[in-house]
Structures are given as C-alpha cells and as structure tokens.
C-alpha cells in the first residue's frame, strides 16, 4: 500500500515537524500497518507513558487513525499518510489563503493547522489571534522564496509573542472563520474523521447489510444496494461542510472581489481613459483583513458556534491549488485579460467543487471519462470581472485581411476609430461586454490546451472546465519537461508521436517523426534505459527468431507517472535529509544561535561574521525547502489532481 519512498518521506516530515517520538510511532505503524496497543508497544519499544502521550497527540494532529472493533473490543491504530504528507503543503496553502483572504485569515488557518483541529472557543483564547499582529519578516521570506510551511509552524510555535508589535484593533476572528468556512477551506470535524476511510466504509456496509430490508434482497441487487447505502452513510458521516448559508449568489463571503464596489462599474459606464491598464488597482487593494465589511454586516455580527470543532479541509485546498496551476497554464500564451476572466471562472467553479476527483486513485489513461466542472453562467462571470478590464484591446480583429489603424477598440481612441469596434465602448456594461468575455473564454477553449468548454443549457451560454482532461494534460506536461531536460527535444517529439499513435515500429516512427535513424535509435535506447519508453516484441513464428520479430515501441504515461512519482518522493526525502545533514555540520554554530538568550537578539550577541554565516545558513535551508515545495507541486500533479 505504501511505497518505501513515500513512507520514508512521511517519516522525515513528521520527524521534522514533531520530533523523533512521533516519527518512531509512525514508522512502526507504517511498517506493520494496523496494530493494537500491546503490539505497537512491542514493536516500538517505547514506555507506556511515551506511547500514550505520543498517540494522543498524533490523533489530535490526525496523523493516526484509530478504530475500536465491535467484534473483539480491541482498538487498532493505523498511520494516516495523507495527513503526514500534507504537512509539506502547509506553506503553499497558507500562501494561497493569504493571497485570497488576507494575512489574518492565513494566521487563523495556521493556528488551526498547528493544533490539528480546534474548537472555536479555543481559538478565541489564543493570544496570537486576539489582535492583529505585525509579523516580523523572517529570514526566509524576504529572500523572495516561497514560504515554507513547516518552518513557519515551528517558528510560530516557538516564538514568544512578546515582541510582536501589537496594535489594538477589534478581532476579526469570527468573520474570518466564517469566510474560511464558506470557502470550504475549513470544515467541521466529525467523529468518522478519526477512523480510516476503509474502516468507515466497512462499518457502514456492515450496518447497511444488517438492516432487515436489505437482508431480504438477494445477489447483485443486494450488493448494489449495500454499496449505494454505505456510500451515502459514509458521506453523511464524514460531511463537514460549513459553507451552507454562507454563500450569496454563488460567491462565498469574504471573497476578494475583482470589481471595486458593488455595481459601481455599471453605474458609470463611460470609461475615462485614465485607467487604461487595469488590474493594478486590484493589486493596490491592500488586504487589511476587513474585506468582508463591504456588505452583509448583519450576518457578521452573529458569531460562529463556539462549540464547533474545525479542521483544515485539504481536499478543498487541493482544488484551489489545482486551479492556480490551470491559471498558470493560461498565462503561458493567452492575453492577460483572458487570464483575469479565467481566474473569475475558476473561482466560481472552485466554490462549487468539493474535491479534485471522486475516485481514490487516478484512473488509467484512456479509461478515464471526462468529468466536467459545474457550468457557470456567462452572466455571472460578467458580474465578477473587473468592469475596467480592457477586454477588446488584447484580441486581434476577426477579419482575415487587416487594415492598419482600424483597431480603435480602446476607449481612448473613441474619436479616431472609424468603422467597427466603437459599439464596444458605447455601452460596456451591456451585451457587448458579455460578448467580449465570451470571446476571451473562447480563446481559452482553443487547442492545444482547451482550458474551457462552452456548454449551452436551455439557451443560456455557460462555461465549464474539463477537469480530468486538464489534469491529465498537467501530468503530461510535467513528464514532457523531464524528458526534454534529460533527452532533448528530439525525444520529446518521439514521445509525443508514440503517445498519439500508440505502438509503432521503427520505420513508421521515423516516417512520422522525420528523424534520422541514428538519432532516433539513440534517443529511443536512452529513453528505454531511463524507463520512459518500452519495446514490445511480437514474434511472427513460434521460434521467436529476432529476424522474424516485429519490434514495437510504446510510451505508457501511467507507468512513467507512477515511477516518477516515486522518484519525486525520493528526491524530496533526499532534500530533507540533506538539510538534516547540513544542520549537523553546523551544529555548534546553530546551537549558539538557538540559545534562548541569543534567539531574537541575534544582532546583539553575534559578531558580524556570525550574522553573515547565519544568513547564509538560512538561505541554504530555504533553498532546499523551496526545492521540496517545488517537488511537491509535481506530486500534486501526479497524485492529487
């Protein structure tokens, strides 16, 4: 079930975040799978005290599932590798939340992450959430390298709050929690979350099977009924959605709006030349943590139930992270306005997408049906898009023959433009705006990426995203990048041909790829050694003579993906192990900087050279951690999207 590489990685992550005790328990559970307490104690060679302490804390962090069997009354413990792995993604998630909902929301989420799960009442008591604090930029952040989750967690847990500059502002805890909940980034903790999905499933099917009405059924019908009912039951038991009642018109509260205020865009339709390039005022909008005070003030005053226990919803956050990847794809060659519009579309879709896919495993290539996102009406996208966004200015004219100077579509050129295009700015709020946005979405729908798909429901144009196909494309892109860097662009062409055509012999392959035999054979051979392509022998007679055998080359992305995924885990482990090693090299020096009297007062106690050394060390660590996070991007593509 667990591969060696991912087990190693999970162990390292836990050790890095929580220390050796947790890592030891976790490793034992990974190695032996389900264990009862006595067996666990036997294998882990820990004292009762250590074990109890460790287990309870790990359960709090969801690193371990436990399940008490009704048959024998034993409680079994089981490792939760997903939770262990998501430790590495925490930095990325906080970054995302900070961009979307502001710094304070990220802090709240961080606190919940640190605690594993927490009741609202407990969050209220946390000193660091009580008031807005100014965060001191630590060594990592100002380097411009992506903040790393575990580091932040460590630092914040260790750092005393005393030296944060505190300003007395009213706490935004409840509104922030609400906006997090309505986005689905946090959800309610249910008892079933402590049990492994398999246990939940077995339990549910057992209960369903023992029902009298199900017992009467027979054969296939019964099996189908049990499966259906059990599925419903598991869903009902694990459902922790908090967004109900918090979403208005398809937009969760607290969502950062692209437009300035309400409907101001449509009320003054004449764009006034000054805001030629748009988007900058979106950037200027400084997050002060009070975005949600625009509207819906009355709802804000109702605090959240303080008995509610919440935890981070990683599934939903994966959806949001996946959307950012799609957006990056769009940025590659679409005009900037299209990207903005795509962002709006993806946001809308994100709010209604609970998870990246329904099946546990990524289905095999070719066996995967297309699964579309919820369709979003064009009109609601129009509402979301910044009214000052210059839409017409970044698409070429429709007519094949282009006359110079007839592109007067920008509001500025109102007086100069002649023939067509002026109708667009006469009335930017009306139908033309919708038409232009539709045009932009159409650009995105073009091959090779097909980022969007148009779908007309009862006459209303809607847009949706073909998630499975795009996720597959992301996977292929990652593979292609690796192939290109290892074997060059010739190999890339060969692989694409093989992928499109299936199995081919050398001659056909040459005809299609138009490569000289020598180059072709060399790349194929080196790719075969690397495990990217494979050779099938089809003998024409029973003797299997090589001269009478057809050799077919093929490329199996599924197989390559899974092997690359393992390699990626391994590379991540290596980076983390290297940090450990580098740390041990610098142990004496680092111990000095971590002394309680030195920490926080480095400037006073350390010499100039030592400070320089410390900066170097931090940069080095950050570099390795950033690499881990880049590798995590790949894992996400291969495993989660």
């Amino acid at each position, binding site marked *: 079930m667990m591969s060696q590489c991912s087990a190693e990685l999970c162990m390292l992550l836990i050790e890095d975040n929580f220390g050796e005790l947790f890592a030891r328990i976790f490793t034992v559970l990974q190695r032996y799978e389900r264990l009862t307490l006595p067996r666990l104690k036997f294998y882990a060679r820990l004292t009762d005290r250590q074990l109890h302490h460790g287990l309870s804390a790990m359960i709090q962090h969801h690193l371990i599932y436990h399940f008490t069997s009704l048959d024998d009354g034993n409680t079994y413990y089981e490792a939760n590798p997903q939770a262990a792995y998501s430790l590495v993604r925490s930095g990325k998630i906080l970054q995302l939340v900070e961009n979307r909902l502001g710094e304070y929301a990220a802090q709240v989420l961080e606190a919940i992450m640190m605690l594993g799960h927490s009741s609202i009442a407990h969050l209220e008591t946390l000193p660091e959430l009580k008031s807005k604090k100014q965060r001191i930029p630590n060594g990592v952040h100002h380097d411009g390298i992506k903040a790393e989750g575990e580091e932040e967690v460590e630092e914040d847990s260790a750092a005393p709050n005393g030296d944060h500059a505190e300003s007395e502002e009213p706490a935004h805890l409840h509104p922030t929690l609400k906006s997090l909940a309505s986005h689905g980034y946090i959800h309610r903790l249910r008892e079933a979350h402590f049990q492994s999905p398999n246990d939940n499933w077995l339990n549910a099917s057992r209960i369903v099977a023992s029902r009298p009405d199900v017992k009467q059924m027979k054969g296939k019908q019964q099996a189908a009924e049990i499966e259906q009912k059990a599925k419903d039951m598991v869903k009902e038991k694990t459902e922790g959605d908090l967004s109900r009642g918090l979403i208005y018109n398809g937009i969760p509260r607290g969502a950062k709006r692209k437009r300035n205020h309400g409907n101001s865009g449509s009320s003054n339709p004449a764009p006034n030349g000054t805001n030629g390039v748009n988007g900058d005022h979106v950037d200027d909008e400084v997050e002060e943590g009070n975005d949600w005070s625009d509207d819906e003030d009355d709802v804000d005053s109702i605090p959240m139930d303080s008995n509610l226990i919440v935890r981070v919803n990683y599934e939903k956050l994966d959806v949001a992270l996946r959307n950012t990847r799609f957006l990056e794809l769009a940025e590659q060659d679409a005009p900037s306005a299209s990207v903005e519009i795509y962002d709006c579309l993806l946001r809308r879709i994100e709010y209604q997408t609970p998870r990246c896919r329904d099946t546990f495993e990524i289905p095999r290539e070719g066996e995967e049906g297309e699964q579309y996102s919820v369709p979003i009406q064009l009109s609601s996208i129009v509402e979301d898009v910044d009214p000052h966004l210059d839409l017409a200015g970044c698409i070429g004219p429709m007519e094949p023959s282009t006359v110079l100077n007839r*592109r007067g579509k920008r509001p500025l050129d109102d007086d100069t433009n002649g023939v067509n295009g002026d109708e667009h700015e006469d009335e930017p709020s009306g139908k033309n705006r919708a038409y232009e946005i539709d045009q932009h979405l159409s650009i995105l729908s073009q091959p090779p990426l097909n980022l969007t798909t148009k779908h007309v429901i009862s006459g209303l144009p809607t847009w949706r995203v073909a998630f499975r196909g795009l996720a597959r494309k992301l996977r292929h892109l990652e593979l292609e990048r690796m192939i290109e860097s290892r074997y060059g662009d010739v190999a890339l062409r060969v692989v694409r041909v093989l992928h499109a055509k299936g199995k081919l012999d050398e001659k056909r392959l040459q005809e299609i790829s138009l490569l000289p035999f020598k180059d072709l054979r060399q790349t194929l051979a080196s790719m075969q050694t690397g495990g990217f392509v494979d050779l099938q022998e089809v003998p024409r007679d029973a003797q299997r003579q090589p001269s009478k055998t057809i050799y077919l080359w093929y490329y199996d992305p599924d197989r390559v993906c899974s092997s690359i995924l393992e390699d990626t885990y391994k590379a991540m482990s290596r980076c983390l192990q290297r940090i450990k090693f580098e740390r041990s090299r610098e142990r004496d020096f680092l111990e000095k900087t971590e002394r309680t009297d030195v920490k926080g007062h480095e400037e006073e106690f350390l010499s100039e050279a030592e400070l320089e050394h410390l900066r170097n060390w931090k940069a080095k660590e950050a*570099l390795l951690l950033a690499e881990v996070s880049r590798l995590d991007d790949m894992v996400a593509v291969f495993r989660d999207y």
Partner: protein
Amino acid sequence: MASAGSQVAELASKLYDACVNEFDPDHLFYQNDFLNLKVIPKNDVALLLECTQSLVNQNLFRLLQKDGKLTWKLIDREDAEKLRNLTPDEAMVYNVIHSTERTGIWVRHIGNRTNLHKSILDRCLKSLEGKNYIKSLHNVKYPSRKMYMLAGLAPSEEVTGGAWFTDGVLDANFINSVAGYIEYTVSRKSWYEVPASDRKKRIKTASGKAEVRSDEKTYLPYPHGYTGYPTVAQITSAVNDSGITPVRLGEESIVQLLEMLCYDNKLVALGNGEWYRSLKNPEAVKANQSRKAPIEGDDLSVANKHLVKNGMTEAPCGQCPVFKLCAPGGAVSPETCEYFDPWLNNGLGF
C-alpha cells in the same frame, strides 16, 4: 502470301495509328476496342489477331493478360525502336522492369520472373544501364536490395520515402530549414501585429509593464473562429515560392512536416487539419531559432537554462546518474552526495 503479309502489315500500322489517335497511351485494349475502331474489314477476328501479333512482334504492342482475357497496351514508337535493338534476353528483362513502373524491382525478382541465369541477367542489366534505358535506385524500406527501374521514371514516394529523403537517407538539414521557415510563416499569420501608431498610444497610458516592452512589437491573438490562419495549400505555395527548396514539394510532404511540427508543439492543427496556427508569436519564433544553433556542442548546463523547468529537473536528484542507488547510509547517500554542494552554491550565487 507476300501480298497477304504486306496487307496485314499495312492494316496493322493503320490499326496502331488509330489506337494512338483514339486512346490515351495508358489505355488497356480489349479485343472489342479494336473492333470498334472499324479498321479491320468486316470485323474479321482472325485478321485482327494476325495484325496484333505482327504489332507485338514489332514491339509496338505489349501483350498482357487480365482476368483471363488477352489485352494489349500501346508502346511508343521510340520505345519500340529501343526494344528492337535489344537482344531477346535484354528485351525480356526490360519488359519485366517496365512492368513494375515507379516502384522498381529487386534484381532477384527479375531473375525469378525471367528464369535467366545470374551471369546473363547481370550482363543484360549492365548493357541496359549502359544504354541508359534503366537505372538502379535506392529503396528506403530495403536499403540492402539492388533495385532497378526505367531511366525515364521518377521513383515513387514509397520507394524514396517522400520528399524528405535524399538517396534514401533522411535529410535532416533540409527538413529543419523548411520546418523553420514554415513555423515562421505560419506564426506571422497567426498573430495580429499591433500597428506602430497604435502602440505609441498604448505606451502613454499603460503602466510600467507595457513600457518595458515598448520597443518590441506587440502581438495579439486572433479571436476564436478566426479563419485567416494559413491552410495547407497556402503553406505549400509559400514554401515553394520561397526558393529554399530545390524541388517542388507536394502537399502531402508539407502535411507530413506540419504534423511533425504539431508533435513539436510548435503548431496546432485547427478544424481537422484545415488550418494551422502557431503557438508562439513571430518574435519568439525568431528568438528561438537563432538561439538553437549555437547550443550544439555546448555543455548541458547551458542548454538546460532554456528549458522549461519543474521540481524534478532542477533538483540535483533529477539529474543524478546514481539516483537509483542512493540510500541513507549507503555508498551513495544524501550525506555524501557530491551534487548538493555545487547546486547549493549555484543557487545561492545569483
């Protein structure tokens, strides 16, 4: 008898002329075709057969068999002249080679069909080649076979492998130059170039981002459903007019190349291959092509800088040759890894 013979010869030449006038040279004649010409008096079949036989003897007709019926084919007078000068063995070989037309025939197959001894066959082939009646050719599919075809014919695509082969070998330089030209041509038609006057206005209003690019040309994509993208026919004629090819390229060859460019992710086929669109704008294409050349021979690290990156390609592990052996505590281990230090220094260096 002599008069009968001369009458037949006269009729035969009449028949031949009528055939040349009435039908195209590749026509396959059945008995009825001759009778319909009304050259033979009273449609006398026996007389007709005599005539055709005399024409076959003069090498003006070639006797063939189709679906169990006798058929005839015309031979040019010039060719007939050639054939008449050959020895019977040579004529036989010539006919066999002639029958395969543009595909050519393997020497061993000629031997099988003519039942000639190898040394006689070789002599015949040599003399035919010397007279410039036949030529040897190189088959892409069977490079080791010695093959012959008529000297006046151009070998078929099947044999040569298409326009992209020179002497049975793929001509990589030629392909690359044509491909580069096509990519650039298509690219110019796939992006809308903002006119210079318009651009100046943009600069005035645009924020910093646009100003940086002010000296570059700005390209905009065309809207969805735009039909001005180049078609295969347009691309073909553009390539042929450009003068970069010594021979005229057919549309099939160009389609082959276009497909290759699609596999290279340079072009995209729209509307089932009707139009082609370039993914990069002309500037980028130009930059890309001028960059390509000096890379050859450079060390890999320089080349890698241009490539798209992901976590695995940039991490030292992604390129490590002994990655599979690496294990903590092993001979190759993260602790003893020699790639990390240079990588870290390189990363911190910038």
